[in-house]
């Protein structure tokens, strides 16, 4: 029995990355710019890593990029230019992940990236979804897509607000995300509902059991809670909000918060929200592993949000320690040419505004760690900076 107890102890003693530490990095590619992406990496349930790039140009605009996939078992694949072209081809955000695939949305289309579909040359197969209305053939524009996947035995569904060239009203649609088993011509919109009153989508979020959209016209705004079967709730909005930066955050206690384009904050609960000034300049929302809601700020700092109220800003010590850790040196695995070489980079942040701070929330890699992008010392070629970029899990806790 002593051995059984020892075994039970060993079995319970798996440790992850310590707060403030950097895990093992994995080199993605050489990329242009001091900031190479604005959407943080996502990890599917099997541990495959997906990175969408989007260089910020000199005017501050994000350019379309590529999507890289690093398998949990090793090796990388790339889908070059898969997000699209022009301003509408910029990867806006991840819809979510399941066991072995993820979905990205741009204003032009939904793109599915399966982790198990990569050829010998490292090309990652992608499935474009719904760049046109399957019924009318009209060009679809995704105004907002909720980072929420409603899973059933039958299918995985997502919700979006779309507009078409032939219809002035936007539509709330429920779509079948598919599983790589049908092409764009067979993509399905499962249901659609016109949105009247000149309302337009300002942002979206994941409320845990449903999606949430912020809609507004010139005089009124509402918060709409929707699942794949229809509207499940509605919240009143006091004040006129602008567009949402990143995502609308909803905590486990029902607190709702979002950072708006003018820097103000939408704050409240599922029944009513209001526009308020933040105590400090904030960048976006993030949920911790326990589904508590926070606002992130450069520093790095955090503003707790609970009970429909903003708390006192706090120093985010583990994020600061993680930033120091990557600058002090991080081990990075270079898997080019089917090999495995471990390098040591004195790295720096190349994603968002600062390490773990961006408009889009950092996404969990494991409990207590978030996936992020870092770069090695940049090389100046003709006035353009290039860096080797790596995916790194960063150990982080919330105060």
């Amino acid at each position, binding site marked *: 029995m002593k*051995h*059984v107890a020892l*075994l*039970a102890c*060993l*079995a*319970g003693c*798996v440790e*992850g*990355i310590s707060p403030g530490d950097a*895990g*093992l990095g*994995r080199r993605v590619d050489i990329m242009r710019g001091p900031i190479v992406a604005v959407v943080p990496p996502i*990890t599917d*349930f099997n*541990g495959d890593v997906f990175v969408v790039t989007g260089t910020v140009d000199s005017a501050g605009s994000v350019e379309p990029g590529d999507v890289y996939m690093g*398998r*949990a*078992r*090793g*090796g990388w694949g790339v889908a070059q230019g898969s997000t699209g072209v022009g301003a509408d081809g910029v990867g806006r955000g991840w819809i979510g992940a*399941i*066991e072995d695939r993820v979905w990205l949305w741009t204003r032009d289309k939904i793109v599915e990236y399966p982790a*198990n*579909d*990569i050829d*010998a040359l490292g090309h990652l197969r992608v499935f474009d979804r719904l760049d046109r209305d399957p019924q009318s053939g009209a060009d679809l524009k995704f105004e907002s897509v909720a980072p929420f996947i409603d*899973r*059933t*035995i*039958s*299918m995985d569904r997502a919700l979006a607000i779309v507009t078409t060239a032939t219809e002035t009203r936007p539509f709330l649609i429920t779509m079948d995300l598919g599983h790589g088993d049908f092409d764009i011509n067979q993509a399905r919109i499962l249901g659609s509902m016109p949105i009247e009153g000149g309302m337009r989508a300002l942002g979206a979020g994941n409320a845990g059991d449903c999606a949430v959209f912020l809609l507004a016209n010139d005089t009124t705004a509402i918060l709409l809670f929707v699942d794949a079967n229809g509207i499940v709730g509605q919240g009143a909005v006091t004040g006129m909000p602008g567009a949402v930066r990143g995502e609308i955050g909803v905590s486990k206690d029902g607190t709702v918060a979002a950072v708006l384009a003018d820097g103000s904050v939408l704050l409240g609960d599922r029944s009513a929200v209001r526009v308020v000034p933040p105590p400090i300049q904030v960048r976006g929302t993030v949920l911790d592993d326990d589904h508590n809601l926070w606002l992130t700020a450069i520093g790095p700092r955090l503003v707790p949000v609970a009970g429909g109220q903003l708390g006192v800003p706090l120093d985010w010590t583990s994020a600061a320690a993680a930033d120091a850790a990557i600058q002090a040196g991080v081990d990075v*695995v270079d*898997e080019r*040419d*089917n*090999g*495995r070489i471990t390098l040591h980079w004195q790295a720096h942040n190349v994603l968002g505004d600062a390490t773990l701070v961006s408009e889009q929330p950092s996404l*969990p*890699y*494991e*409990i207590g760690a978030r996936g992020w992008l870092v770069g090695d010392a940049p090389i100046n070629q003709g006035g353009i900076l290039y860096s080797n970029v790596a995916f790194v*899990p960063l150990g982080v806790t919330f105060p």
Partner: protein
Amino acid sequence: MKRALTTICLVAGTAHAGDPVKMQEMEAQEDKPAADAAKPKEKTAEEPKTPDDPSPVEVSGGQKPTIELSNGPTKARLFGSLGPAVGVTYAPTATDADRLRGGVEGSNAGLGLHAQIATLSGIAYVSVTAPQNDNSIVHLDRATLRWEPFKFLQLSAGHEPIPLDVQSATPMAAMMFPQALPWNGEFAPVAKAGAQVAGLHEYGSVWVGIWDGFAPDLAAEIIEERGLMGSARVEVTPLGKFDYDENVKNIPLRVGIGAGVTYRAATGYRGDGMANRRSRDLRAAGSVRVGWTALLVEVEVMRKQITDDLSMRPDVATGVYGQASYRIKLDTWQLVPLGRVGTYTIRQMSAPSQGSSAELGLGTIPWPSDRLRVMGLYQYIGDPQLGASHRGVLQARLSF
């Protein structure tokens, strides 16, 4: 070559098929040696097992064979089972088309062969399950060669379930439930082949094995993973021998306290042969079983944790379940209520998600020989990702 078949037993004839009276008579007789078949003998299903006539529970569930060939020290026994079933699944969160589905998914058939030459024996058991997505599934449960130089020592090699947990250690042919725990696959390791040493004693048993080809699920990947897996299971039976057999009846109080562990250190290789990843896979299980007369109760905890030096992202899962079955003897037939509940959490270190299952069934065994049983089972399966589904299954199983 002169071959003398000293004994040939063929019991399940077609002449009496469909005649319950004749079938009962046949089954009452099939437990006797052929030479004594003509002598009147009290009909009983609880004949004591004699040491020189072991019933291999791995392929027959402890029943005597329908066909037995022997030639001196050489014996061959053939067993089979047919289990037609109908089932209905209701998935409330599914779309209209998938919400209510029926079919014969629970149907299966099994065929087992046991051959013995002195202390050397071979066992094979194959099952075929009903079509799913137009494809029937042929499952080789076990195909092993076993050498038993002493009564307390067995050495075996071949393909068989790794006895990490009670569900894996219980042979398919010896299950009272129509199927194993629905989510056992989340924890139970699978191997292509291996070798195992078993030390058997009245008051405890030990199994130690080494295995190859750990269910890699790498079909679509360009990475090959290699690594041997070691396994060990200890079962303490302080009140006497207690087999992994759900078909208990008329046994004195028996207790089995068991623990199992498997460990595999593997290396992943890229296409050019370079090693790129090392992983460690540890699985453990602890169980308590209690059997008394016709009651069997099992409780088990299972744990899985896989780590590797590339993703550095542990895959950890924990599950627990309990099951019970009881035979209520009513004259010559029996009623068998059975139930099993369990819960498990997957991806505990990355994206935790909880699943559960509950099964409640009632079976009847109309004849004393156990060769026919009809089982009705309700299953609730709470998938960690896809939501709940409810399933009703009615299965008849005829063993021969």
